[in-house]
């Protein structure tokens, strides 16, 4: 829809996708501002001849002679909600997001078996606001609570509590932990093997075999972790 047929050096190009989004967002924001201003005018606010210095919107004045800028004081608070410097919940969600990203990078495996109490003690307990449930739930999904029935031997000290996502464990602290775990599992494995060799009943043998297989799985996971 060119008004001037002969434009010499400027060719109008249609806006790109991103620009369209920006234009659309700006238009929606302007519509929101107009609607709010109209509501305030009907409530008895006065429309002044001045504009706000920050955003350039027309200022309104209430009955108590207090100036009010619709966009600064009402609309922009939507953005403040997401600012970590202003909102603690936003800060927590940001931290959680970073943990998630790090975990994905470390290729956290699914720990099915034998997380020991020592492993559980590595986890730092954190306060859980409701808003961050989503991020936390995502982290939890990576480590499903193992549902394997614990073997009857009372020596088992495996705690199968729902595991919380670890707090970015450093590699230096991981190694002794893994070694200890490996040691414990190997011990159990040796014990189970000796028991199996001397076992007479079928049931006991089956249980011992399952114990051995879960120990082997745990060892494999631990070995993968240490790599």
């Amino acid at each position: 829809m060119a008004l001037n047929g002969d434009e010499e050096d400027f060719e109008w190009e249609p806006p790109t996708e991103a620009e369209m989004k920006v234009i659309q967002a700006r238009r929606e924001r302007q519509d929101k501002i107009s609607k709010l201003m109209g509501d305030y005018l009907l409530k008895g606010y006065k429309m002044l001849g001045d504009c706000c210095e920050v955003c350039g919107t027309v200022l309104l004045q209430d009955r108590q002679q207090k100036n009010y800028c619709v966009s600064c004081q009402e609309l922009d608070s939507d953005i403040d909600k997401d600012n970590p410097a202003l909102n603690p919940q936003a800060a927590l969600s940001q931290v959680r997001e970073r943990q998630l990203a790090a975990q994905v990078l470390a290729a956290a495996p699914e720990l099915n078996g034998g997380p020991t109490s020592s492993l559980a003690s590595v986890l730092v307990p954190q306060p859980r606001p409701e808003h961050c449930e989503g991020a936390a739930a995502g982290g939890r999904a990576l480590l499903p609570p193992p549902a394997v029935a614990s073997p009857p031997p009372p020596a088992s000290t495996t705690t199968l509590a729902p595991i919380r996502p670890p707090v970015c464990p450093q590699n230096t602290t991981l190694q002794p932990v893994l070694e200890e775990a490996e040691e414990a599992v190997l011990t159990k494995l040796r014990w189970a093997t000796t028991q199996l060799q001397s076992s007479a009943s079928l049931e006991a043998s089956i249980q011992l075999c399952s114990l051995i297989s879960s120990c082997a799985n745990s060892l494999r996971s631990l070995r993968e972790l240490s790599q």
Partner: protein
Amino acid sequence: MVPLEQLHLNHVLQTVSALESVILRSFGPEGGQVLFTRDTGQVMLSRSGKRILTALHLDHPLARMVVRCVWKHSTITGDGSKTFVLLLASLLRIIHATASKETHMFQSHNSTKAAEAATARHLADKLLEFALTELDKFIVLNVLPHGFCVSLENFTAKTQHNLSFQTLLVSFFHTRLGYAYCDFFRNLFCELLSHWKVKDDQPSFSIHLLNNSFPALHTQVSGVPVSCSRLIEGQVIHRDFATPCPQVRKQPLKAAVFNGYLQPKLLTTGDVLELRCGDKVTEDRGIVHFSSWTERSVESIIATLQSFGVSVLLCALKQSTAVLAAATQAGMCLVECVSEEEISLFTQLSGVTPISDCRRIHPEHIATLTFCKPLLLGAHRCVHLDFHDCEERLKVKPCSLVICAPSEGQADQHACAFQDAFRMLLTALEPMHKTQKKTIPSEECTSLHADNISNEAACRVHLHQKCVIETGCVISAGGTFEFLLHHALHQYGHSCSVSVNTSAVSQLLAKALLSVPRQIYSHNLKHFLQAQTRVMALIPRQPNALSTNLIHTEGPLADGKLSLCSCNKGNMSLKLLDLGLESVSCKYQLVLAVLQCLTNLLRMNMLLRTHTILHTKSHNSLNAHSESSEDEDED
């Protein structure tokens, strides 16, 4: 605070958008009412855009300017103030969008904002030029054939024309007062018109008279149900008697009207009274002598009036106690502080002139009344009088309107609706061209033959060299005007015979016009599409052919005038009548007014702040209560 401020297109758009959002919720047939309350407990209930906008507190000069334009437009046409703001806002948005794309036209400007403003100004000027020269052609060719004609000739009979007239009134009252009372008020309105219709004369004359004297012609009564509204014969003066009114009156009565004081007022602040007795200036007993002389003169005036047989005195100003006492003694009824409008109506109806010099009272100052008695309306006592032989003299049966409502706010709303109905009718009935005769290019008249012509469908369309559009054209409401005009402008913009600039301008206007029906059907997009389809179905396939119900007459009509009347499309017309009717002339004036306001708005580019209050008079007339704040003027 900067004394000088640049105005940008954004500011204009933001201000007008805020005003638009104020009236948006009351717009359309399903729009709501706004209830304004004051700290004193007074309420104002309104759906009229003019009242809503003038009740806002606005200090921004642009907003005030827009509201003033709306007010002036509404004072003349009586309707369309919300549509005004809606159309203005949508035009501004489209121009803003276009200007941001097309700023390369004015690259000589320093900043993009200045270039944008210049482009916008240019566009607005082009739009106005286009509308002033070519818009009426589109309306005549594309909108009027789908409309009806109304006239005031014998509007109480049940013919097609009168059905349209009644429907026009009903739809108007529906938009203002809601569904419940629109029929009742339509009947009341028609009754009022029939009483005041001057026989053998232009019907619009009586509407002019009613419009000008409406404040004196109606009384608002609150606390009574709406159905008690009625007409009373004669005139009602909204003052009570200042002197006791004796019960027995011989008929007919004689009355006189006084513009000034019967007893000259004595000293007020700053007056110097010079008393002369012969040639010498006396100082002793001066003031006593003077006041006794004035009292004697009052008695002589009353004696003169008694000799004429006058028993009713109507005074514009407050009279002194001596005058009241003298009138009581003489057995005359006196009404003081009668408003100017009532006095002028009285003098018009009775045919007398008011007495300005009390010493010269002649027979032409004496009016004859059939009765003059007190009347209780609601909580107030008024004076009710009727004129002797008014019908023979003026050929009019004067009557006054009593508007009842449960609350004051509602009574006020009804009275405003009545007044605006007069203005709307006046605009609807006036020809679209007052000053210039348009030359519509003579196209090939397609001779179409109509098989069945009913008596009500007087359809004669004849494309002649010179034509004047006839008055009283109405079209069905609900956005039909906008749809048809949009289509016509859109087609015109796409046709090859126009220049690029004109095409751009006509398409811009077409796009803006569509915002009105879009807002009417904003709650349901399906209805919008249905309405658009229904209206588009009315448009014939061939661009220049007219509808099949039109007949082609040979030869020019009497004195070269074209009579462009309505066409009846049988069932379609009845369906369209269900939607209500609106006047084409009002819509055309609205579009022109919006474009002029737009041009003025965009021509401004600077705000100057002053420290004195300017425009106090207009400020007071627009706002119900004025605030003494710093006022700003625009460049």
